[in-house]
């Protein structure tokens, strides 16, 4: 298993501890609040992922073979999930990000927010994170 999914599994197990949806969501909301926020100046349209229900901003940096993400959303639940996704990928290598399968999301009980038809920007965001990794790979590691 790649590093992203390993980290993800650990994150998922945090969520599995909650019996009550409310506790889970309160935790998610807390996570959202601790998200490494994207700088206001980086909230540009090119960093915006538009969903009909909520909007997501995402930026990525490449440093010494590792990718670092920052994000934000106007909805706090979406922001919580942005935070979860970033936690799983932040500081990972491009190959791990590209290879990640994210099956552990099933265990978080948040899957419903990640349906392609939910249109909250999250599905597009996952795609975007992988695209960033691929772009960095081509640019900096061109093999």
């Amino acid at each position, binding site marked *: 298993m790649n590093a992203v999914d390993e980290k993800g599994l650990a994150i998922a197990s945090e969520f599995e501890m909650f019996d009550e*949806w*409310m506790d889970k*969501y*309160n935790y998610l*909301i807390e996570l959202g609040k601790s998200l490494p926020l994207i700088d206001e100046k980086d909230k540009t349209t090119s960093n915006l992922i538009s969903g*009909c*229900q*909520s*909007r997501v901003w995402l930026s990525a940096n490449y440093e010494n073979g590792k990718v670092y993400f920052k994000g934000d959303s*106007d*909805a*706090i*639940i*979406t922001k919580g999930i942005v935070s979860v996704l970033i936690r799983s990928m932040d500081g990972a290598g491009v190959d791990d990000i590209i290879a990640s399968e994210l099956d552990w999301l099933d265990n978080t009980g948040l899957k419903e*927010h990640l349906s392609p038809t939910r249109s*909250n920007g999250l599905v597009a965001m996952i795609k975007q994170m992988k695209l960033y990794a691929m772009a960095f790979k081509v640019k900096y590691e061109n093999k």
Partner: protein
Amino acid sequence: MDLAVMQYSVDKIRADFPILKQMIRKYPLVYFDNGATTQKPVKVIEAVDRYYLTINSNIHRGVHYLSNEATDAFEQARKRVATFINAPESREVIFTKGTTESINLVANSLAGFLLKEGDEVMVTEMEHHANIVPWQMVCERVGAKLKVVPISDSGELLVESLDSLLTERVKIIAFAHVSNVLGTINPVQEICAKAHERGILTLVDGAQGIAHQTVDVQSLGCDFYVFSGHKMYAPMGTGVLWGKASLLESMPPYQGGGEMIDKVSFTGTTYNVIPYKFEAGTPDVGGVIGLMAAIDYLTEIDFGSALEYEEGVMHYAYESLKQIEGLRFIGDAKRRTGVISFILNGAHPYDVGSILDHQGIAVRTGHHCAQPLMDRFAIPGTVRASFSIYNTREEVDKLVAGLKVAANMLL
């Protein structure tokens, strides 16, 4: 008759809608998304089943028994719809797959025929995309212009502005009977009168009107009235375009195909009479029979008292929601029905909706396919509770309690 018998019994009504007994995430379903689509009474479901189990067949021009039975039922449904909206003639009722298709039909048929370069089409700031985009597309095609009637902060059309807006370039004004976001009931008669004085056609988008008002197209005085069956207890995929016969007769067809023709040859094709001219291809016979069953159901339970009851629940909802701190209504028109839109200040509608959902409460959140209206109020979206004849005061209480939970978690 005993007064108690005549009284509206919401328990009896709820028993007609089996889905309402569903448990959602361990909570009994509280369904306040009726503006998107209503649930269907068992009589509608059974009527469609009966169609498929006994007379299913393609209609019109059949020589065999099933085909004649199905055709009779289909044409019966047309009469029933005509009666329901008090249309002068049943051939003025055209079956479509919904409001969206009805509007596209009218817009496209008028393009090039009535609408020419330099002409104007008038819509309002509170329209659903279905009553904006088809006109935009058609205007672009023929070189006409789309103009917009503004609304007030309380969500009412600035009807006075029509006097200057309705110039001679305007060929048609298309507007909602009831706004799907604000609940505003527009003054249809007044607008139609102003339009007709100037020889301008009127199309009323009745998607939200049909389930919350008794509609009389003659007294409304419009030229076209369109609505969706699925928002008035009928199956998905059903809709109606009503139009004045004289207009429909002179309009060119929209889609081409079987049924809508008189004679086809490669040198020239002539078209059938209305309503068939506008009904190309095999229609959703089962759905249309379901629509008839829905009308029968509403008649049977006395639609008038059902609406009165519903208004009562909605009024109760307004009063209850008002008590919630930080809740702000979007839309505050004097005459309202069907939907209540609001935002919890500081909370995103998506978050509110998600937390309500976890308590078994179904509302809709977002822009409700009315982005220009969201822009007008400078909000990303609203939470919308929309009502029906089976909702109860207890459900309103649950909504209020649920919103308090959301406020606690989010604010």
